[in-house]
């Protein structure tokens, strides 16, 4: 139970850590997936604030939380939720840590093949690794460099039905995760603190 809980917590947390990419300009001439990947791969580090809304069928109103995100190349991601309840989720290499109050839980990504495939795909996005990404996801790119959308559909069905990442040039603006049960979460990355 604990492991399953952790694994899901971490998956979700990782899904929420994508919007950390600084501004870069790209020519709009031939806007293809490799171009976006190249742009994302060139990202060294970034910090941002986020607001996340979870739309849950049972509830009349979305659950809202907010906090800070940071990314340090090549593999360190942090999501610090500040409101309504402080919590930190840290991914460093293969290790995921969830800290809440005095409690701290660690897990290895390799422990769970299902989670691992999922998480590695997200990391592949950040690393601009198209081949790794396409091993697990059907990837579709929409829009133009100054307003693009990456749509990820899992090759084998799981609890995530679809992930949609919206961005402007090298900057991720919003991550929209739709679950198989119809619930969804939308994370808006509202402000880049440092490039």
């Amino acid at each position, binding site marked *: 139970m604990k492991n399953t809980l952790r694994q899901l917590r971490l998956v979700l947390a990782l899904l929420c850590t994508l919007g950390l990419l600084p501004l870069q300009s790209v020519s709009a001439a031939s806007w293809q997936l490799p171009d976006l990947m190249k742009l994302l791969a060139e990202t060294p580090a970034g910090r941002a604030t986020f607001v996340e809304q979870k739309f*849950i069928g049972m509830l009349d109103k979305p659950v809202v939380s907010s906090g800070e995100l940071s990314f340090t190349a090549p593999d360190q991601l942090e999501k610090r*939720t500040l409101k309504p309840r402080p919590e930190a989720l840290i991914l460093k290499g293969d290790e995921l840590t969830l800290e809440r109050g005095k409690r701290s839980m660690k897990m290895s990504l390799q422990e769970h*093949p299902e989670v691992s495939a999922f998480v590695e795909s997200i990391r592949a996005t950040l690393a601009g690794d198209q081949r790794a990404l396409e091993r697990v996801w059907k990837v579709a790119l929409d829009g133009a460099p100054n307003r693009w959308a990456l749509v990820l559909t899992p090759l084998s069905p799981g609890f995530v039905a679809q992930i949609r990442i919206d961005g402007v040039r090298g900057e991720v603006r919003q991550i929209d995760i739709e679950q198989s049960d119809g619930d969804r979460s939308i994370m808006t990355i509202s402000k880049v603190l440092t490039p």
Partner: protein
Amino acid sequence: MSAVRRTLAGKLPLLIWLVALVLCVGVILRTHFVADMSAFLPSNPDAQQRVLVEQLRDGTIARLMIVGIEGGDAASRHRASRELAAKLRQSPRFIGVQNGESATLARDRSFYFNNRYLLSPAVTTEHFTADGLREAIGNSLDSLSGSAGMMLKSLLAKDPTGETLELIDNLQQGGGPRVADDVWVSRDDSRALLLLQTSAAGSDTDAQAATIAEVRSSFEAVRGQSGDQANAMRVVLTGAGVFSVHSRDAIKFDARLLAGLSTVFVVILLLAVYRSTRLLILGLMPVLSGALAGIAAVSLGFGQVHGLTLGFGATLIGEAVDYSIYLFVQSGQNSQGAAPRSWEGKFWRTVLIGVATSVCGFGAMLVSGFPGLAQLGLYSMSGLLAAVLVTRYVLPSLMPKSVNMRDIEPIGARLTSAAHWLARGRVIALGLIAAATVFLCVQHAHIWNHDISALNPVPRADQELDAQLRGELGAPDSRYLLAFNAADEQAALRAAEKLDAPLRKLVDDGVLAGFNSPARMLPSLATQQARQSAMPDAATLRSNLQTALVDMPLRADKLEGFVDDVQAARTRKPLTRADLDGTASALGLDAMLARKSEGYTLLIPLNAPASNEKGLDLQQLRTALASSQLEGGNENLHVIDLRDQAESLYAGYLDEAIRLSAWGLAAVIGVIALALRDARRIVRVLLPLAGSVALVMAGLVLSGTMLSILHLIGLLLTVAVGSNYALFFDQGDEDTTPAQQHRTIVSLVLANLATVVGFGLLATSSVSVLSALGATVGPGALLSLLLAAVLVPAKRTSA
């Protein structure tokens, strides 16, 4: 008529001997042999020691066996883990088999979910009022905002007050083992791991051996089912029972091999001198009789015989064979004709004094509070007595009237002059002894090793493997325990509940890193019933929910599942231990709730914070827990550091042995004084004994060895063997013929060679307890003979 009677009288000792041998064999055949730590545990333990003893003997910790599957490729190992676990689960030899498979975890998960309202300490009357519900549901909604929110939502409909999460959060502290492919693996995934709980007690070595054999054969069967990669796999095992079996096997193997080798040597040596197989066989009779009598005596006295006592028996050859050597060689029953009758009386007197000193040395151990030491004492005493009785009363009547023994006269003459030459080194010898004595006095604080590991017969490699596997499994080292003796299971559970709050406070204060307790797995009947009566009926709960959820994004009609579950929990039968069957928690619970002959013992393992290098402050814990009013009184509650207990136990054991040896030595001095009644002779006889003890001890300390209890026993044996040498040299000093002197010195050298070779071989053993004994007695016996030659003879006026 009188001739017949005389013949009968002559045969009587023989008859008694044969009957005694048959009786001994009869006793031995019914003897129970053990090879666990029990011989090293006190026979009258205090309450804290009893916990340690019980844990080591048949506690759950002693029943745990960790299995590692190595080699081959990862996929084969993972598959082998699943198949091995499935096979072992079918076997009655295992109470529990865990390998991390999610099927087991799922059972635990549903146990906690299904029984959440009986298990959760949050369940009180207030919890289900409108205010209580508002707070609990508000918390659950808040936790949805975290990174795990989208997962937790599935619990909301039936468990809006968040009991399941709270229970599971409480359950597992620290990270468990890594999981790959649905099985536990080491951090680098080079090993698949399984945790077994055996039906056999850790101290039941035979049953543990059978259990180990079953794990191995099951593994072979699993491995045999597939290809090359699978064939490269092997299995490693660790655990208290595995240690018992391995050390028994190692001691058995070494003792057999080395005793075999030294027997071959002694046989060759004696054959070369006696040139008679009949004498040879007769010469081994006292050894055989002594060993049988020793085992039988221990079996009768203690009800069981420890393997180490048995291994020690092999070393008895060293001394017991001496008696017949002295008899055969000194009686001079060779072509030169028999020795005069006057010799006989003196000879037996000397042997008798020698035996008396040995019996005194070992006899002191009889009163030891530790069965192992007392067994050794009884074994040695009865063995030596039997050996000397057989030599005295049985051998003479069986000896051939005349044998063609090798002419030892020339060797004897040469040895005698060598002894005379050695005797010139008297000053050097005394100087060395003085130096050794001074050295030991200076070093007195660093002579004895009070560390219990000195006694551990488990090879270092096995200990390292154990530590490694334990670490990989995330199994706590179980160093600190809270033990409480309760009248019954329910009383033990109620005590666990009372201790829960103060222990949680200690965790919050950072004094403890965590603890395990039955309180959250199986609450007492009283607590479960109190929780049931705290739950409201459906109508009340619905109306309270309506009030609680005003202004919340959740509507009461979505929580009908919650209302139904609470109603079911209100009226159901309370949980018992049987309800946990099949869950991983059951193993943990059984470990913490040990059934005793009288009542139950509650055992709560405490984990020290990693940052706390000094270990826990037990006094602080006792104070913190003193306020919990336990049934039957708080004096039944013990805070125990098992490592400290084991160490102080061994230290006490060693100190007692040293004290008893001192008494034994005093007795030895007394016997010699009584027998010789001449101050100068007494000193002459005692000096080589004291000297060889001092030199051996100094030598061992100089070579960097801290002395353990086995060294001490070796020193006692050195004194036992060495006293014979000194006494014979002393006797030879009286008006004896040169031929008699020559025979005596040959017999001493022969006996010494047998001893030195036997113990020298033992010193090469990989088992630390055996090598300690060998490294002490081998050099000790040699030094005793040399020093006896140098120091005993009075200054000769004519030479």
